[in-house]
C-alpha cells in the first residue's frame, strides 16, 4: 500500500481524527505547509511549529515537528523567544485572523517591525470558528456573526498591508482553492529571512458560511475560484472591477537582515568591549 506523501509528517497514531469541520479549509493549508517543507528538505527536528488559540492553532498537534501550542494571541511572542534563543531552528507560526490581529495584534506588528525571523501562516476564515462564530478583525463590514446578528459595524484589516506597513520582509496571500499556488507561496516564505507572512484564505462553511448564507463548502470554494485575482492581473484592472475580490500572490518581497542576525552582531560587539 502506498502511503499519502504527507503521512510521515503527521502524528497519526496520536491525535487523529482532527477537530476541523467537514469542508474547513485548514487541512488544505496544513497539506500545503507539509509539502513545502518536504520540497525544501528542511529537517523536521529543526522545525518548530508555534500556534496560539483557535481552529488554526490546533495544527501543531497534528504535525510531527517540535510543537508549541501557546495562549490566545501570544504565538508570535513565544516564537520570537524560541528563535532568538536558538536561531538555527525554523520557526513557523500558525495563527488565525482573531488570534493574530485582535488579541495578538500588538505582537504581530511588533514582530514585523523588529523583523523577527519567523514564517507566519495566518489562516483567515473571517470569523472566530472554535468558539461559535463571533466576528473577527477580518469579518467584512455588514457580514453576520453570532456577536453581529444584524451585521458588523466595523471595518476589516488587510493583514498583508498591515504587516508590510509594520516592516515585514515578505507578504503574500493565497486561497485554499489554489492549493498549488498556496504551497509555492509558503515555500517561498520559508526561504525568506526576516518576518514573512502568508495569509491563507480558508473558508468556514460551518459558521461564517451558514451565518452569511454562502452555501455549502463546495459553493464557498467555487466562490473563491470565481473571485480570486492574481496580483499581477489585478494591477492591470480598474479598481471598481476589484471590489469584493481576493487578490493573491506576493505583495512584498525585500531582502533584509533579520533580527536574530543583528543580535548576533550585538553579541560580537559586546564581547569585543568586554
Amino acid at each position: 500500500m502506498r502511503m499519502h506523501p504527507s503521512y510521515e509528517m503527521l502524528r497519526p497514531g496520536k491525535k487523529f481524527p482532527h477537530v476541523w469541520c467537514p469542508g474547513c479549509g485548514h487541512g488544505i493549508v496544513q497539506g500545503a505547509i507539509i509539502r513545502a517543507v518536504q520540497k525544501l528538505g528542511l529537517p523536521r527536528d529543526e522545525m518548530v511549529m508555534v500556534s496560539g488559540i483557535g481552529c488554526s492553532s490546533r495544527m501543531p498537534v497534528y504535525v510531527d515537528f517540535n510543537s508549541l501550542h501557546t495562549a490566545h494571541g501570544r504565538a508570535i511572542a513565544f516564537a520570537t523567544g524560541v528563535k532568538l534563543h536558538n536561531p538555527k531552528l525554523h520557526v513557523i507560526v500558525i495563527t488565525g485572523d482573531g488570534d493574530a490581529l485582535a488579541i495578538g495584534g500588538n505582537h504581530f506588528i511588533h514582530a514585523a517591525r523588529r523583523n523577527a525571523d519567523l514564517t507566519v501562516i495566518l489562516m483567515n476564515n473571517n470569523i472566530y470558528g472554535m468558539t461559535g462564530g463571533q466576528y473577527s478583525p477580518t469579518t467584512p463590514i455588514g457580514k453576520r456573526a453570532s456577536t453581529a446578528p444584524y451585521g458588523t459595524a466595523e471595518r476589516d484589516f488587510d493583514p498583508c498591508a498591515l504587516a508590510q506597513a509594520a516592516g515585514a520582509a515578505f507578504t503574500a496571500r493565497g486561497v485554499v482553492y489554489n492549493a498549488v499556488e498556496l504551497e509555492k507561496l509558503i515555500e517561498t516564505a520559508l526561504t525568506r529571512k526576516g518576518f514573512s507572512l502568508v495569509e491563507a484564505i480558508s473558508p468556514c462553511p460551518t459558521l461564517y458560511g451558514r451565518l452569511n448564507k454562502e452555501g455549502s463548502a463546495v459553493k464557498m470554494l467555487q466562490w473563491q475560484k470565481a473571485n480570486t485575482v492574481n496580483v499581477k492581473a489585478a494591477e492591470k484592472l480598474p479598481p471598481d472591477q476589484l471590489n469584493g475580490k481576493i487578490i493573491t500572490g506576493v505583495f512584498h518581497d525585500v531582502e533584509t537582515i533579520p533580527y536574530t542576525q543583528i543580535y548576533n552582531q550585538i553579541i560580537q560587539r559586546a564581547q569585543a568591549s568586554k
Partner: protein
Amino acid sequence: MSKDIRLLQGNESCSLGAIYAGCNFFGGYPITPSTEIAEEMALMLPREGGRFIQMEDEIAGIATVLGAAAAGAKAMTATSGPGFSLMMELLGYGCMAEIPCVIVNVQRGGPSTGLPTKGAQADVMQARWGTHGDHPTIALCPSSVEESFKLTVRAFNLAEKFRMPVILLLDEFIGHMREKMEIPGPGEMEIYNHPQPTCQPAAYLHYGDGSSVGGAYASLGSGYRFNITGLTHDQHGFPTGRADEIQWKMDRLRAKVEDHLAELIEVDQEFMDDAEIAVFSYGGAARTAQQAVREARAKGIKAGLVRPITLWPFPNQALAEVLRKVKTMIVAEISQGQLLGEVQRVNQFHTKVVPVQRYDGEMLTPTEVVNAIVEAAK
C-alpha cells in the same frame, strides 16, 4: 584570589545572581522600580553570549521567556505590579506547560499605576492566587542585597528542578537599596541544571517521568519532537478531555510542591529560643523588624523575629510551631494585611495576632514595631 566585594543595589545583585546561575535569556518590558534589572541584563547578557529582548508589553515579555525556556534557555523576566498583573496569563501557562523560568516582581504601591517609585508588599496574594485555575506557586523573598543575589540563584535552581516558573518577590525597598556584598566565586554556590533525556525519541514522554521533580526533560529542537500546550494534557503533552488524565495532570502539578515542602520552605528565625513575642515579617519590612526586636531586647523584652524567606508555599508548619509557643504574634508588613490573613488562618492556638501595617509608600519605622512589642509585653 582577592574577594570580590561590591556595593550594589538589590536589583543589580539580582541581575548578577541570574548571570551566576547561568541565565542566558531575558525578555521583558521596562517598569519602575524593576528597570535596573532589565538594564543590567541588557548590558551583561550579550557579553556572556546570551540574549536580551525588550518586548512590546509584559505579556510578550514573559511569552518570549517561556518560548526561549521551552527551547532550552535559562530565562528570566522582571517587572512590577502593573506588569505582574499582565503576566498572570502566562504565569499560568508556564505552570500548566511546566516550563522553568524566573519572574522577578519588584513590588511597588498599588492598585493600578499606584506608586511607581515607592515600595509596597501587597502582591503577596497575587503571587499565589493571581492566575485562574488550581496550581501551586513558589515565591522567594529577599531581605538584603546579598539575599537578592542568592535567592535569584536559588530561584533558577528550583525552576529547573521543579519545572515551573519561580517568583522572586522583591520590593522597592530592597531593590533600590545599596549594600555591599561579596560575590561568590565560581563553584561556591550550587547550580542545578535539569538532566536531559537519554531514551529513544520514540519512547520519550515529555510529562512521563514518575515524579515531575528532578526528572529529565527535553527542549524544542533537541531531537525529541513533542508537543507543549496550555490545554490540559496527557503524558505526551497532547490535549486531553479524559477525566482520569485531567485528574493525573492536576495532581501532578499539586504534588510537585506539596510533596517537597521541606526542600522548598526556608524560614529565618532570630532570638526565638525564649521569645514570648514574635514579629512575623519578610522582605523590606523585615529589616525594620530586625532592628525592632533588637531594640525590644535592649529594653529587656523577650522578642524574636520569624522571617519567611519562602513565602509560597506558605510556611504553615514553622509558623504554627511559633504560634503555639508565643503569647503574641506581631505581623509587620507594608500592606493592608495580606500576610496577616495567612497568619490568622494558621493560628489555631488562641495566640494574639497584632497587625503593624503601613501603606503610605514609606517603610515601617523601628519605633512603630517597637511600640507594638512594648504594648504586647504589658
